[in-house]
């Protein structure tokens, strides 16, 4: 049994006691998810908090049986997605600020040379900002599958789509993303040779 499955079983009997472990288990993932959708650490932080508060209110209302059978991961991503959509609805797109530093420090390996790390960091910044230029539908599908590592079945559940549609949205998103990245890649290649 995974941590997540045993957590939903414990939540069924003891919501107040088990809610803190739930936040600890999912906060980094949901923050990472909302950060890639919004491009703003501030929006991501507030969206992550809203997500958990809404989740708690919903869990309070659910009977124990429903809590026990809940697939927490897709359920939480779905709430987060709704939170982000509600926040950006009616709001003009803001300037994109990309936080390279946190992710780069976390993913840099000690044995990697600084210039390699810097190059990778730059590349990731470009991927992150290209993701934000995709139409929401495809960007979200790519983030769920390839940034967050959800299975296609989970992506489909989050997006409330058939698995086939989720798959084709992910593939379309990847194609669009590669297309958006190409000019930068050409420049980078020109600079390094």
């Amino acid at each position, binding site marked *: 049994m995974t941590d997540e499955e045993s957590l939903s079983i414990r939540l069924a009997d003891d919501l107040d006691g088990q*809610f*803190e472990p739930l936040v600890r288990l999912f906060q980094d993932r949901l*923050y*990472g998810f909302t950060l890639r959708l919004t491009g703003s*650490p501030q929006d991501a932080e507030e969206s992550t908090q809203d997500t958990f*508060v809404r989740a708690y209110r919903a869990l309070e209302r659910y009977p124990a049986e429903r809590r026990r059978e809940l697939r927490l991961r897709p359920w939480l991503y779905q709430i987060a997605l709704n939170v982000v959509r509600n926040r950006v609805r009616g709001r003009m797109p803001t300037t994109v600020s990309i936080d390279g530093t946190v992710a780069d420090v*976390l993913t840099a390996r000690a044995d990697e040379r600084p210039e390699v790390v810097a190059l990778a960091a730059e590349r*990731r910044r470009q991927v992150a900002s290209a993701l934000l230029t995709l139409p929401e539908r495809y960007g979200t599908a790519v983030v769920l599958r390839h*940034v967050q590592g959800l299975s296609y079945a989970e992506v489909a559940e989050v997006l409330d789509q058939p698995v086939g549609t989720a798959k084709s949205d992910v593939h379309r998103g990847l194609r669009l993303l590669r297309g958006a990245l190409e000019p930068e890649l050409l420049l980078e290649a020109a600079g390094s040779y």
Partner: protein
Amino acid sequence: MQGREFFDDLRALGAVRAPRNVLEEVLDQVGLGDHFAALDTALGPVFVAWNRVGVSAVMKTGTAAEFGARFRARFGREPRLVADLPAEIGTRFDLRSVTEFERAVLLKAREIPRGEVRTYGWIAAQIGHPAAVRAVGTALRKNPVPVLIPCHRVVRSDGHIGDYALGGSEAKLMILQSEGLGRGQIAQLVRAGRSAPPSQLAANG
């Protein structure tokens, strides 16, 4: 573009940490955050923290800021200082930070009435682990809510009063004295307890 590198880059974008205040903000908004206030005891003022689960910590520190820092270090949450304790303090406890065994020890210690003492061995036997006397001592030292769960009423079988979570054996003696027991009386109770069933190991009356 290398396919593998592209997917590695995407995956790396997910490796971020949520800011530290997310957990506190969320717990606070749903009413599960910790508050704390000062409480006067036989040991002088102590700080007591509680949340919706129950009382989460009792610590004796010089200042509220020091309490906040120790609480954060131990529980990973940020408590908020308030003026008053709730009226019904001490009826429910937040024992999420302890193991099942420790919880059994603490709940058993809670049954010992004021003005009485029991031995570590008595607790061990009562919770069905008669050999785990040392582990009982360790569990009591880790009591997150001393005074309210009266771990000070558990003493050594040789009549020494033993360790105390809230500031050594002197503090333990002081609080037992405030409950009407002197050092000699404690030893006497323990000696009497060796020949009497544990349930009769009590102060006079």
